[in-house]
């Protein structure tokens, strides 16, 4: 199987950095880091939502576990002297739906556009571990109008749970146990695949299991993030002359319906030991590893939906599942994790840091993701002015 050549990471990042202009001297205060942005930097960096905005959109903010701005100031994904968030009075000014805590921890991932490009950047604001976090009734007056939730449904007749469960974030946690055994099923019995024995198993019983140090590779995010102008070829018309291949997408648009930027977590795992995959899965895993390299537990890195569904799962080499909605499995069911709509032009602040999976030697597992992040942070553009692919 192919592995990432030694030094490749440093080589790619070095090339990217050579193309960058010198980094401007950062200001001492968090707000200054944002305010110092040039005139071309018109995208504000991400901040946590206000309590009111959470409630208006059907989620009880007190049930957001590990909420940035309230908890997890240090610790994963921050390391060393890093902090995950800072107080910043510009947040609510830039966007009144935000509260004044700016997010520095910027998690990288693969958008599900089939390219496997590491150009998606998100802010994991917190976790939802129980269905009861979704409001069933709520009302707030706004001028002469009322924002109401009745029977879990907002004024548009949509239940928040229904919206956010259309958007899947794929978590790929380490399957290798401390004793070196590669576990081929999660310990959550309802999730266990019939393709592999139930034990030995790997645990998903708390939100920490999706913290970056416990991931074997970076996140992948589902493709149904519809562009409102249809520019992503999303097809939602039932007119065959418009959509000859049929209605192909979620009824909801990520940026226009899922206003909290939430995702349901779909855990994806291998049901075979990559060291002994057998005659069917061996060639499958080898082909993916040759393209993408190996993850931290020795299994091939999965970057696309095609690899997940049509190669790994279709051949019985992997499976996927979600947590029980009553919280009995203990882990994260949903992420409050808004994707940065456009990471260019100031959205990646100068004091932000990239949260990505790293090799044991500290080098990034995906150097191109690092290069993309650094370029965005320093120039406001992807390397070479491209799209990070």
């Amino acid at each position, binding site marked *: 199987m192919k592995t990432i050549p030694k030094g490749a990471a440093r080589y790619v990042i070095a090339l990217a950095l050579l193309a960058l202009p010198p980094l401007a001297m950062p200001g001492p205060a968090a707000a200054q880091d944002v305010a110092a942005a040039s005139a071309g930097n018109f995208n504000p960096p991400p901040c946590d939502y206000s309590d009111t905005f959470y409630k208006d959109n059907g989620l009880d903010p007190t049930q957001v576990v590990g909420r940035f701005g309230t908890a997890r100031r240090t610790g994963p994904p921050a390391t060393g002297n890093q902090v995950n968030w800072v107080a910043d009075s510009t947040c609510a000014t830039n966007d009144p739906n935000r509260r004044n805590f700016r997010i520095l921890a910027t998690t990288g991932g693969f958008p599900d556009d089939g390219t496997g490009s590491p150009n998606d950047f998100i802010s994991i604001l917190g976790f939802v571990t129980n269905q009861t976090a979704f409001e069933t009734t709520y009302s707030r007056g706004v001028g002469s109008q009322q924002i109401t939730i009745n029977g879990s449904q907002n004024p548009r*007749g949509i239940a928040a749970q229904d919206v956010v469960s259309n958007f899947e974030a794929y978590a790929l946690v380490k399957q290798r146990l401390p004793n070196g055994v590669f576990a081929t099923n999660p310990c959550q019995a309802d999730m266990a695949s019939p393709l592999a024995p139930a034990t030995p198993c790997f645990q998903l019983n708390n939100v920490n299991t999706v913290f970056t140090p416990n991931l074997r590779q970076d996140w992948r995010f589902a493709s149904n993030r519809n562009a409102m102008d249809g520019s992503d070829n999303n097809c939602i018309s039932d007119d065959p002359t418009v959509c000859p291949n049929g209605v192909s997408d979620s009824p909801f648009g990520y940026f226009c319906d899922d206003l909290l930027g939430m995702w349901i977590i779909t855990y994806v795992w291998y049901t075979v030991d990559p060291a002994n995959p057998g005659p069917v899965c061996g060639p499958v895993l080898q082909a993916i590893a040759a393209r993408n390299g190996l993850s931290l537990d020795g299994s091939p890195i999965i970057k696309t939906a095609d690899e997940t569904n049509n190669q790994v799962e279709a051949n019985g080499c992997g499976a996927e599942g979600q947590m029980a909605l009553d919280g009995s499995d203990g882990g994260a069911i949903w992420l409050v994790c808004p994707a940065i709509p456009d990471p260019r032009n100031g959205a990646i602040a100068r004091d932000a840091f990239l949260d990505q999976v790293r090799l044991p030697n500290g080098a990034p597992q995906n150097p191109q993701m690092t290069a993309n992040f650094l370029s965005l942070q320093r120039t406001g553009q992807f390397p070479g002015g491209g799209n990070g692919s």
Partner: protein
Amino acid sequence: MVTAPDVVSRREFLGKAAATTAAASLAGSGKVFAMRKTLRILKWAHFVPEYDGWFASAAADWGREHQTKVVIDKVPVEGIGAAATADLKSRRGHDICIFPWPPAHFYQHAIDHTGIYQEVASRYGAIPQLAYRSTFNPQTKQHFAVADFWMPSPLHFFQDYWAQVGMPLGPVHYGALRSGGRKLRQQLGIPSGLAFSATLEGNVTLHTILYSRRAWLLEGHEGVLFNKNAFAFEALRYLQALYEESGTSEQLTWGSAGNVRAMLARKTSSTTNAISLLRTAEKQDPGVAGQILLQPPPLGTAGMGVTALPHVTNCSAVWRAAANQDGARQFLADLIGNSRQGFEKSLGCNFPIYPKTVPDLIVRLSKDAQASPSYKYVELKDALHWTPNLGVPGFASPAYMEIFTSSLVPRMVQSVLKGERSATDAASVAAIEMQRIVSRWQQA
């Protein structure tokens, strides 16, 4: 499901049909009816009797306007396939046969319905995807039927039951359907109520579960895909776990609408069905109806998203042997124009194929006079987005529809749930049978 009181059995129907034919022959010999045409319609009995009452009345009105005597024969939904076959064998049967599913395997006996779609296009727009992929035969390049309405298949669940196991908003994915269902049976003694029997409900439910777990039956170009990957085995094992942990043996033996009756009696915690279930509850017991909530189908696996096949795709076929083809074509075109009334008379069960015929559909779903709360049905507002055609990822082909109507899938699943076959063996046997069906149609 509600059955109309005037529904006839297949045997009764055949007798009636013969009698009707004889009567018409006699009438045709008289001078009074010498200039009068006859339009004979065979249709499945709608779940909402009010709809069939309206249909009969509207058809009679249409007949008066077109100097045509309209004769309607209804058969129970499960008997429509056999009745249509008998109709064709008699060669003196009906002009139109109305099915609750795409009658693709009858295409050799049906006229090309493209002209009907073309006629209504000027009023209601191009043929929508669901109708196109449900009634078009890519081999013949013809439409073997015309679709006028469809019914979505949402999940119905008892909010009070599910609240007791910590899921008051219902099971949003199949894993939760299983884990919540198990707790409900353990704690309350209430099993889950998906239909696994050889009925319309059982077929729609099981085809949906297979599809939503990427265990596709046929490829777009009609090759058998089932059991050529791991998804079939995985789906069957899921169903086995769901049944063993949360089900009841009655799921395997329910007749038509058995899942509906179980829900109405509050004997089960959830099921998938057309909203005729909830409508019946509203009429029979508002207290029960008040506890039933709807939600879109559970989230599938392997990238399939939220999806469910239609409970009904109402398709009308004009037989080539029809004596009154022109009248039949006109009747069906006009029927599409009556979709708004059809929606109302079916108590909102019949979603129009042409959205323009009921342009305020979402408003109506948002404020329903019978529902409590009134916005309960708004969960269906995006149903068209999560409802593909029977036959997906391909068209509703003759082979697929034979697989569907022969209940091959429920039989396969039952063999696993009863312990007669392992999931591996059942999938293998079913795939062979599917291949046999496909091969026969390829030679047809």
